[in-house]
């Protein structure tokens, strides 16, 4: 991103609204929060709301229907159902609160310590937690009831222990990853004490997941508790929803409707908790606490629904294949189109999250002839990668070619059906990506990743594909092709991985190679070798290469011609010599001015400018 950019970002930052407000704007969030609030309030004010005393029973009224003052009627012992429901809710929810408190009190600090400091505490705590997770909860609860007696509250404490791993593991995992963030290191170097670092930098990250987990675990705790009571394992006469279910079940023949109210209460509460957790997740994850995406374009792309790049643009210019659209004012050789790759007036747009579109590439003209290496140079956000992606037809979701024409080998690819385009990729056009390692699947050997595409594309036998793959590996100057063939990606170096990807790109004998910063992730010496390899392939096979790069040294090393991009436009094109040595555009001059190659070495240190020790 350029330094001169105004502070206002290209993508407007999401307004920092409160989480609560965002939650309440979520329809499910609002509904579930309202239901839960109603239940909690009703239960809290049970003494005021209930028509009778929970213990009072009048056998006369047993199984009595609804009547004035007793809207839900009476149960088998002649107790008022509404009263039982409200007081039962107190016990049920109270039990869940106890279980949660125990789990939070143990799991969160434990997870924080284990994740932040690691070491023996981490090992010991993780071991215990794994043990607890291996225990079947119901069996433990039944056993503890037998040992500790039939008190609900004690059982809830035991349940709290049993759900502690849910919090411990969550917190530990997040903290362990945050611990390695550079900003935590920076805080340490700033001289902050550990508790302060934890509060400022770590808790803020675990807060949201903990809240979500609380909602989920309360649902589980309520369910388990009701299950216990339903089995008749609770304390006999305490009213709870589970106990009410148990009692109703005993009389299900006589009064099936008794099941209704406690079942409804349980269902509503658990359902509301789960929905609230989902809504909370949406609301909290919207906050932008995750590190911002590095690429502006990707960020714009990821937030929007899919528009398949091929199909959406079919209406734009289906018939321009043979009629070049010559644009004025571009120093490119715009009139005559190159046979291999020719781009005219290409524009790329992204659908914005709030509707509308944003154009990131505005009318680019570009030509690559057979046997020619063309550099596409620019800083981040200049649109150079977007241009390369549109040539390949692999624009990220939300992006599309909104205007212009791209021909590869004389064929118009804008608006080409995806199927046809796919056939073109790999056979005529091939792609070498920036990050070699992340473009190899760690689960498969290098060899199988080369062989499978070839078998599919070229429809050749396995043995033939293996032979070709080994041949390709030796062509990309890998000393021991067989060994590399049998290696997994993690067993080879970054430079080797990039060679493998180039081999993969060459496997179907393409005419055009699109390489997106192919050496940026590599050390300079490996870079020199990969550049040498690309040069040789170009020379020997007459390959055309479009090389996207930010490195002017790479351009000088490899490219015949260069196009300089800035803010979605090409500002200058020419031979590498002309652009690097006699730049016409002020931006190209500025770029070259920032190159430090010719800057003099710093003069030796003089004690005179030193401070006093």
């Amino acid at each position, binding site marked *: *991103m*350029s*330094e001169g950019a105004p*502070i*206002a*970002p290209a993508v407007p*930052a999401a307004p920092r609204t409160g989480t609560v407000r965002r939650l309440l704007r979520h329809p499910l969030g609002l509904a579930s929060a309202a239901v839960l609030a109603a239940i909690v309030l009703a239960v809290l004010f049970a003494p005021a709301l209930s028509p009778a005393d929970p213990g009072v029973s009048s056998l006369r009224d047993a199984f009595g229907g609804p009547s004035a003052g007793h809207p839900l009627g009476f149960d088998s012992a002649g107790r008022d159902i509404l009263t039982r429901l409200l007081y039962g809710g107190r016990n049920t929810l109270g039990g869940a609160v106890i279980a949660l408190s125990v789990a939070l009190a143990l799991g969160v600090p434990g997870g924080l310590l284990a994740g932040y400091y690691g070491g023996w505490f981490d090992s010991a705590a993780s071991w215990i937690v794994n043990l607890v997770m291996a225990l079947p909860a119901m069996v433990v609860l039944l056993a503890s009831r037998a040992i500790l007696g039939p008190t609900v509250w004690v059982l809830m404490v035991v349940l709290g222990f049993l759900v502690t791993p849910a919090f411990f593991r969550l917190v530990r995992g997040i903290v362990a990853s945050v611990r390695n963030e550079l*900003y935590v*290191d*920076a*805080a*340490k*170097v*700033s*001289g*902050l*004490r550990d508790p302060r670092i934890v509060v*400022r930098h770590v808790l803020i990250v675990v807060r949201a997941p903990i809240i979500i987990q609380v909602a989920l675990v309360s649902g589980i705790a309520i369910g388990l508790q009701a299950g216990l009571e339903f089995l008749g394992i609770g304390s006999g006469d305490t009213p709870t929803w589970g106990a009410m279910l148990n009692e109703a079940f005993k009389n299900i023949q006589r009064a099936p409707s008794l099941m209704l109210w406690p079942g409804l209460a349980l269902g509503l509460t658990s359902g509301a908790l789960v929905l609230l957790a989902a809504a909370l997740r949406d609301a909290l994850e919207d*906050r*932008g*606490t*995750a*590190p*911002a995406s*590095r690429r502006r374009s990707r960020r714009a792309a990821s937030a929007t629904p899919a528009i398949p790049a091929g199909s959406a643009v079919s209406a734009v210019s289906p018939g321009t294949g043979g009629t070049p659209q010559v644009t004025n004012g571009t120093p490119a050789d715009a009139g005559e189109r190159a046979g291999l790759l020719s781009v005219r007036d290409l524009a790329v747009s992204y659908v914005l999250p709030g509707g509308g579109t944003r154009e990131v590439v505005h009318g680019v003209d570009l030509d690559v002839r057979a046997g020619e290496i063309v550099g596409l140079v620019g800083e*981040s956000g200049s649109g150079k990668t977007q241009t390369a992606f549109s040539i390949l037809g692999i624009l990220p979701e939300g992006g599309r070619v909104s205007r212009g024409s791209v021909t590869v080998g004389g064929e118009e690819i804008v608006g080409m059906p995806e199927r046809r385009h796919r056939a073109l990729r790999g056979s005529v056009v091939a792609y070498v990506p920036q990050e070699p390692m992340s473009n190899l699947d760690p689960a498969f050997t290098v060899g199988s990743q080369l062989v499978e595409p070839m078998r599919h594309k070229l429809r050749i036998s396995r043995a033939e594909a293996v032979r070709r793959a080994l041949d390709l590996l030796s062509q990309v100057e*890998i000393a021991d092709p067989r060994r590399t063939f049998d290696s997994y990606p993690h067993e080879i170096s970054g*430079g080797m991985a990039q060679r493998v990807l180039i081999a993969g790109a060459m496997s179907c004998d393409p005419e055009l190679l699109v390489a997106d910063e192919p050496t940026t992730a590599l*050390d*300079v*010496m*490996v*870079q*020199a*070798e990969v550049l*040498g390899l690309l040069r040789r392939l170009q020379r020997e096979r007459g390959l055309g290469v479009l090389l996207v790069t*930010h*490195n*002017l*040294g790479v*351009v*000088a*090393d490899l490219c015949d011609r260069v196009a300089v991009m800035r803010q979605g436009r090409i500002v200058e094109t020419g031979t590498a010599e002309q652009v*690097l*040595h006699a730049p016409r555009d002020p931006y190209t001059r500025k*770029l070259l001015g920032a190159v*430090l*190659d010719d*800057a*003099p*070495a*710093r003069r*030796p*240190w003089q*004690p005179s*400018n*030193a*401070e*006093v*020790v």
Partner: protein
Amino acid sequence: MPDSVSTDMSTDPPPETPAGALLTVEDLRVSFPGKGWRAPRAEVLRGVSLDVRPGETLGLVGESGSGKTTIGRAILGLVPVHSGTITFAGERVDRVTARRRRELSRDIQVVFQDPYTSLNPSLTVGDTLSEPLLGQGYGAREARARVARLLERVELPADAAHRLPREFSGGQRQRVAIARALAIDPRLIVCDEPVSALDLTTQKTVLDLLLEIQEQTGVSYLFVSHDLSVIRFMSHRVAVIRHGEIVEMGEAAEVTAGPRHPYTRALLLSAPVADVAGQRERREAFEREFRAREAGTGEAVI
């Protein structure tokens, strides 16, 4: 990777510890637990010695995995030192208590490589900048005033304090990180690849800012980078590190114009320059000297 690291003894031995050195590192060794059960420890630094004088920049250049970043982290106390000594202003700081380490933050600061992850995304720039101030016991109002001066110092607008990092570009974030390092007037700043995530034009302005700050405050830099041209531009002296050992150290002009160690020479020649004819010459020289012997091992042979 062959283990035959030639520590060419004809090159400069690490110079004698000068009496006036601000930071002296001697025979520093750092190792990490090996991967897998009972695996041998992986040695990252194998006896590194260097020194930084007040107001001086020592450039540390090397490839990925050479251990250059680890030197900085050891000095900052972020990785444990296995053996060797680190002396800062006459005091051994390689094994200090947590309390003393916190106090040292007044003198030794850092600018990390990645301005995207070195700032907490959920803290405003003002909060991030006041962090070291609060750590040193500044009051809230003092801290605010100091933050405003710091922002001015790194040429960011004053209202930046109320914004979140995501509202800034890479170069601007790196300015925030520099301001954080400057917050309590340190005497040494470890700059760990501070410009490698930045665009070319942004890189130049950030480097210029670092130079200007050094001229004004007399702060020392330990400047870590993989880019020799950046190192040469920034450093009074340069140390070239490979496989955890310093292979060559000397004045910037000497090391980058007439390197004595073949590894330095290979590094120098393999970095492409933005000059078509010049780059052709360098490429040919590199191939003549290094590539001819063996190709395809993934490494130039030195």
